[in-house]
């Protein structure tokens, strides 16, 4: 079933995705991509007549993060006066989710509190096994070397291991909860569900508190040890540790200098929060050992409506690690590029997408004509960007370690661009087959990046050869794909020039710098590309407009994307950042407009987040609500980039304030007209 989360949480060993009413949608252990062990896991109250599920329509939910942490607070209010507050956090070290429930009622409430789970341990519906060891206060379910355990404080009073889908329907725990009694059986096998329960009897002045622990392990003995260990700490002390850990991790970030944006009230605070949330999100979606990232926590496991997102694409990850690098988390780069070394194919390219452990993922890009060549260009480009930030002797060590990878990748790109544009392959959106402006720009940047590293590796001959090819690609791309209308064609599809405008042509400027804003002719080209994209790809919703990927986009209703919108705003800010706003009124006005326009797009993107602040891939074009993959790492990376550019611009302004004051020119660049 496709269910998009509203919040995510976790630690180095566990990832949990959650619906807006505190339902667990995904419980990933030990990887962020595999295995997802939970089909359904949530609480309900039995009021003597029937069960009130915590995700039933009547509850009004308010879910948010505790500031600067990956702790999720969910407050549910029922029209009958019941209130259920859930505080969810993952232990700092152990793969154990802590679910702290507080139940209140406006009037006396007598009944039961049940915690129900339909676990599919190891992503297996069948051949699971479950047992309740009541003496240890543990319900455990396992398949092969995956163990999931549920324990609680106070210890549950009743329990049931049930058949989730069987003709002996009265053993089904979900069904059996409806009479308010669980069967207290010990064990079962097959497709299972389970429930644990407590009596609850509160009046208006009191609350009932239950803490449910859901832990994971690869062995039964380890599970027992972990679930015992967590019981030795109080939920409050775990919470304090979790909070402290996240705040400490976040304290490493680059400190931002953002102004109060006139006309964008409270925006500075929103940007700070978005910056922090993007960092915290990305930290959860990376494999802490391997260095790879899932594009988004998987939500379409059956590939019902798309090809899935719970895998690592080099394209996405290259953008993500660079954003984290700029945010002063360079360790993600070093880990990811090591992963790249290990996953590179024999021909020097990278596969369409991978499992986080480096195995090739389910793919529709198994042939040279169906691969995505831009991913190889992006990887080498990002590698060089990181390399340039390193200092002696780490810099030389890094180059030594990746040189064979760079050489192999660059030669792959050379082999596939003999005509000055790349051989036919699949586009970055994985929609079209052919030759693409974006892919050529990525290859251009990849070859120049390889050339830069080759120069340092005393391989001038290779560097010259790769640079020459890069320039040939640039020249050919402009000659063949630049249109009189003032933008690049998408490329060649079905053997013909495809003049449809595609937001990815921004790649010629950002991030690949095939066009430079500091060369007047190229600056004019960039401006024209931006104007055409704004004109032709805008989708009005949420009091402004977002940018969709291309005309006639029919993937998930052709919504505007956060990615393309923040990509555009990033381009605007990159343009602004190279303008000397003190040079004169014209420059100042241009600088002001570019920044203002970018701010409007950023503001629009923030309106498209979930209530907890998760940045999605898309925004529903009718409602303005977050759509499809949530959260999307690429969106988070672009949000970081945008805010870092605003910071860069502000620092430049701050350093030139004196000059501005002397000349009498306003530096109030963000005032709305």
């Amino acid at each position, binding site marked *: 079933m496709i269910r998009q989360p509203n919040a995510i949480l976790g630690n180095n060993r566990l990832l949990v995705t959650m619906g807006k009413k505190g339902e667990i949608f995904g419980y990933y252990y030990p990887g962020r991509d595999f295995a997802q062990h939970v089909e359904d896991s949530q609480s309900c109250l039995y009021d003597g007549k029937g069960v009130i599920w915590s995700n039933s329509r009547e509850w009004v939910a308010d879910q948010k993060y505790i500031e600067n942490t990956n702790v999720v607070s969910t407050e549910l209010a029922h029209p009958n006066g019941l209130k259920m507050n859930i505080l969810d956090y993952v232990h700092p070290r152990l793969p154990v989710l802590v679910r702290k429930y507080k139940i209140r009622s406006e009037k006396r409430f007598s009944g039961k509190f049940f915690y129900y789970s339909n676990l599919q341990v190891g992503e297996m519906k069948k051949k699971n096994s479950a047992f309740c060891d009541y003496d240890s206060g543990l319900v455990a379910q396992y398949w092969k070397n995956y163990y999931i355990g549920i324990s609680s404080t106070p210890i549950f009073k009743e329990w049931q291991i049930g058949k989730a*889908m*069987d003709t002996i329907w009265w053993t*089904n725990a979900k069904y059996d909860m409806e009479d308010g009694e669980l069967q207290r059986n*010990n064990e079962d096998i097959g*497709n299972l569900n389970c429930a644990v329960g407590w009596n609850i009897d509160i009046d208006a002045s009191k609350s009932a508190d239950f803490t449910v622990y859901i832990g994971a392990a690869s062995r039964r003995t380890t599970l027992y040890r972990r679930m015992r260990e967590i019981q030795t700490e109080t939920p409050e002390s775990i919470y304090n540790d979790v909070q402290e850990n996240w705040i400490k991790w976040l304290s490493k970030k680059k400190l931002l200098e953002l102004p109060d944006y006139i006309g964008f009230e409270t925006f500075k605070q929103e940007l700070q929060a978005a910056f922090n949330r993007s960092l915290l999100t990305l930290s959860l979606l990376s494999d802490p050992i391997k260095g790879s990232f899932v594009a988004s926590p998987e939500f379409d496991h059956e590939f019902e409506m798309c090809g899935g997102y719970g895998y690592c694409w080099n394209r996405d990850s290259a953008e993500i690690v660079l954003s984290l690098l700029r945010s002063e988390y360079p360790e993600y780069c070093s880990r990811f590029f090591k992963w790249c070394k290990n996953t590179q194919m024999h021909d020097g390219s990278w596969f369409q997408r991978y499992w986080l452990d480096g195995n090739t993922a389910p793919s529709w890009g198994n042939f040279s004509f169906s691969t995505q060549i831009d991913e190889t260009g992006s990887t080498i480009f990002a590698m060089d960007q990181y390399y340039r930030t390193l200092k002696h002797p780490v810099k030389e060590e890094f180059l030594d370690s990746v040189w064979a990878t760079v050489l192999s990748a660059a030669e792959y790109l050379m082999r596939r661009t003999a005509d000055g544009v790349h051989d036919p392959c699949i586009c970055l959106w994985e929609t079209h087959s052919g030759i693409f402006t974006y892919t050529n720009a990525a290859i251009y940047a990849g070859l120049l990046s390889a050339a830069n590293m080759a120069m340092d590796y005393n391989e001038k001959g290779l560097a010259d050869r790769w640079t020459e090819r890069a320039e040939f690609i640039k020249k050919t791309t402009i000659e063949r794909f630049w249109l009189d209308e003032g933008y690049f064609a998408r490329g060649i599809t079905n053997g013909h020039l495809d003049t449809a405008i595609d937001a990815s042509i921004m790649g010629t400027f950002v991030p690949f710098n095939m066009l430079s804003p500091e060369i007047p002719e190229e600056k004019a080209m960039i401006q024209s590309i931006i104007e055409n994209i704004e004109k032709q790809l805008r989708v009005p919703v949420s009091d402004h407009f977002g940018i969709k990927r291309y005309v006639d986009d029919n993937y998930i209703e052709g919504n505007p994307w956060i990615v393309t919108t923040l990509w555009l705003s990033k381009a605007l800010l990159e343009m602004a950042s190279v303008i000397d706003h003190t040079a004169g009124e014209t420059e100042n006005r241009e600088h002001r407009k570019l920044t203002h326009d970018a701010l409007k797009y950023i503001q629009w993107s923030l309106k498209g987040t979930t209530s907890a602040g998760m940045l999605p891939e898309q925004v529903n074009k009718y409602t303005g609500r977050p759509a499809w993959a949530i959260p999307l790492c690429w969106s988070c990376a672009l949000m970081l980039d945008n805010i870092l550019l605003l910071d860069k611009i502000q620092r430049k302004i701050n350093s030139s304030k004196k000059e501005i004051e002397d000349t009498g020119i306003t530096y109030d660049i963000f005032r709305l007209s």
Partner: protein
Amino acid sequence: MVRDLYMFSRVNEEADVIWFKVAYENTVHSEADITSFFAEKGLDIRFAYLDSSEDPTKGKYVMFTEAEKGRDIGSIAEELEKMDVVLSVKWGYSKNRAIQSVDFPLQLLGKRAVIIRAKTFVDIINIMNEQVPQSEGLLTMIGIRNGAGAARYMQEMVEMNDDNFLGLLGELLMAAGWGKIEYDINIFELTGIVRMKDSFLADEYGESDVPVCVYISAFLAGYISECLKKTVQVRESKCKSMGDEVCEHVISAAPSGVKIEHLLRGELH
């Protein structure tokens, strides 16, 4: 309960088929007056029904008539509406002369309902059996929920007790076109048999080596369990699709106090 209306018109090609929906004041002579009016106007009533069950003071008279092409139906309807007993008139042409619904949407057991052919239902089951793991368990869960839901609705509508709940079920199943049941159940021991003649599932399914009416078994289990507030299991022991004359569903109490691990270990005799 509002009942939908439809008809297949294979009548005079030279005539129009016109439907009327007449709301009237419910007197002893209202229906006769309206019927006489149509006779006077030479409009041949081909199919009709009356319904005054929702509000005893008002009735609804729905009919399909035939009239030679070109008749001024608007004037007739105006005249009809002026009758003392008539409250309002709606009318229209059944243009395609194949099927026509006057009341929409259809309601059944207090909920929106649709009509599907038995073949469509069986197709759904067949596809589930082919494509879905544990399809029998899934059909059981659906049947249980539907049976229990039907029982809850019936309990709201009529005074149900141990004596009449199976009779009411029989009427419901026949009205819905599922089949005709006979039953012999000891509600104290929770044992017995429900036999279903002309089960729509078995009829439509065709030949099979195994019983095919698991959905009906589960519906019966849900209905009976909800009515008796005791958990029963129902399994189909004979099925028309297997060559039996009727389908036979065996009722028994769900094992109480028996834990699944005992079953697995063979500790249960």
